[in-house]
């Protein structure tokens, strides 16, 4: 029985080590890797209830396409039935651009002159069939060519007829881009925007115009941007702080419990290995929160050992033999260990299911930690004590 237990334990330990070594990189949270998290909510106000599913599908599709166009190497998007969209993009250079690309639909508008100002003409990006980038052969400047659909072409024709010889202004997102003079009535529904864009800007604009509008407005309800300059520093300090905290606990156990403390520390190393391997299997992200949860769990894992060792001291005073001391120590301390750990398991479990982001990561690693500590601090330490007691 003992042998079986040891074999299982060693097997699990070795495979944990292998798992940690094979998958070298832990996935880091935004606070430690830098990046952007955008949370959007679909505004359902003007959406018919029967169309909810449709809108959700279309939005999903469009959002995915828009993110793809950002050219980021990795990203994570999640959609909920309620219309909540969470987008995580690590290591993005320009978060503002991402926001613009994902959440906003460019608003293109042609305006007509009236006295000294321009007023809306009714011709907008909604009549657009497609947009393309080309290069003006004379100036070598990039231009965006527009092609309107049938209705748009008709409006454009009327417009160019009416304002022949006068300027028509092109506005993008409320800003004037250019105001060319109409030289002829345009019947084929083709127009060009020449602004002072770079080639990249022109490509971006054309792409955004082509993608069209979202089926329902998106509200950006939360945004979190961490510059990798900050996260790199924090990662180093956080790892240092975590290791230091664990070393404090390890030293504490040796100082106050000597050899027994040393055995508890060995169990603690097993404990850490299991936890880290488990994070990789389940896919726990390493963030400030999850690190704190793990470190706190280390501080609590040795609680069981303290209770047991203190109890053993008492039993020893009664003049029992070492084997009996170990048995009594474990058996008598066990109910207290179980009950106190159980209340932490309950609270962290509830927090994990009810809370959001930061707090979730913390509750998860604390929960795993407390559960694993049952195995290592109680059963494994007991085994270690028993084999060393024989000698």
């Amino acid at each position, binding site marked *: 029985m003992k042998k079986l237990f040891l074999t299982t334990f060693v097997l699990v330990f070795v495979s944990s080590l292998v798992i940690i070594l094979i998958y070298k990189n832990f996935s880091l949270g935004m606070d430690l890797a830098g990046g952007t998290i955008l949370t959007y909510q679909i505004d359902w106000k003007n959406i018919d209830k029967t169309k909810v599913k449709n809108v959700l599908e279309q939005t999903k599709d469009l959002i995915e396409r828009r993110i793809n166009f950002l050219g980021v190497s990795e990203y994570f998007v999640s959609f909920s039935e309620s219309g909540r969209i969470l987008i995580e993009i690590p290591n993005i250079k320009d978060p503002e651009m991402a926001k613009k690309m994902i959440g906003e639909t460019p608003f293109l508008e042609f305006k007509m002159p009236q006295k000294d100002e321009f007023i809306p003409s009714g011709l907008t990006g909604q009549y657009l069939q497609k947009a393309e980038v080309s290069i003006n052969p004379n100036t070598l400047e990039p231009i965006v060519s527009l092609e309107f659909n049938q209705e748009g072409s008709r409006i454009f024709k009327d417009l160019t007829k009416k304002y022949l010889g006068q300027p028509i202004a092109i506005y993008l997102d409320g800003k004037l881009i250019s105001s060319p003079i109409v030289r002829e009535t345009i019947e084929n529904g083709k127009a060009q925007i020449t602004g002072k864009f770079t080639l990249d800007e022109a490509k971006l604009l054309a792409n955004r115009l082509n993608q069209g509008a979202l089926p329902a407005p998106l509200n950006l309800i939360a945004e979190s941007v961490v510059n990798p300059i900050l996260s790199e520093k924090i990662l180093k300090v956080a790892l240092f702080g975590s290791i230091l905290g664990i070393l404090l606990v390890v030293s504490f156990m040796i100082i106050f419990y000597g050899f027994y403390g040393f055995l508890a520390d060995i169990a603690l190393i097993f404990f850490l290995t299991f936890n880290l391997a488990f994070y990789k299997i389940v896919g726990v992200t390493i963030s400030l929160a999850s690190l704190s949860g793990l*470190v706190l769990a280390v501080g609590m894992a040795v609680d069981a050992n303290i209770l047991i060792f203190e109890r053993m001291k008492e039993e020893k005073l009664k003049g029992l033999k070492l084997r009996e001391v170990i048995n009594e120590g474990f058996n008598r301390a066990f109910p207290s260990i179980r009950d106190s750990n159980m209340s932490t398991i309950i609270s962290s479990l509830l927090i994990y299911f009810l809370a959001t982001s930061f707090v979730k990561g913390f509750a998860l690693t604390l929960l795993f930690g407390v559960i694993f500590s049952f195995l290592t601090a109680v059963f494994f330490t007991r085994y270690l004590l028993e084999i060393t007691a024989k000698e």
Partner: protein
Amino acid sequence: MDFIEKRFYFYFLSLILVLFGALSFYIFNPNLGIDLVGGQILEVKTKVNIEKIIKKLNSKVYFFQTQEGYLIKGQENLNALWQEIQKEDSQSQKIRYESISPSLSAELRSKAGLMTILVLLAVGSYVSFAFYKLKKQFSLFELGFIVVITLFHDVIATIGFYVLLTKFFNFDLDVKFITALLIIAGFSAHDTIVVFDRLRENILKTGKKTKEIFSSSIRQTLRRSIFTSLTAVLAILPLSILIPDLRGFLLSIQIGIIIGTYSSVCLAAPLLFDGK
């Protein structure tokens, strides 16, 4: 020291701690986190005099210095401020930016409220259940009463200390702090369970419920109560010092753990003695 003998001093101290915790909101008027009320946080690395810009824009944000530069918090849009900062020092860098809309924060508030109620109920029930085995020695009413008293004592006293700390550090009352309180509620009973288990054992052994039995039970478990709390506090101590983002959260857990140990030894066990 005889903890039963001195119990009225402790009752008095606990009363003060709880009163202080309950009144701390009115006394110190702590800042609420943007996750609870909505708002924005901007951390910038810049040579610009932030105070001047805030005055110039007449905005109602507040700021403080960090290792990297300045952290600006407020319930208004910080974009204008950022543009102004960039205008004056084009080398300025956005280190971090966070924004939470009022609609999301309202949702987070109600979620936090639900979480608080459920965790307190669940933990309270489990601890009452754990104490059920003491029913032959003590009245269940008495035990339940002590569970509730110590749980609220620990949570409210921790609030008091934390709110006091918000005046010296740049801590907010946020969802993280609420979580810390719930974690503390989960820990609260740890040491109480240890002391009560010992009491039960001693009462079963001697058949007596005297002051001496209570005193010696506390004495016998005192060292392990302190040690088990100490290791948890020690483990998170370096992180709480080194990482400003975690400081408020971990410090409140540390305070709560210490208060939890105090209350199990100086409050729960003596109360059980008085109610026997």
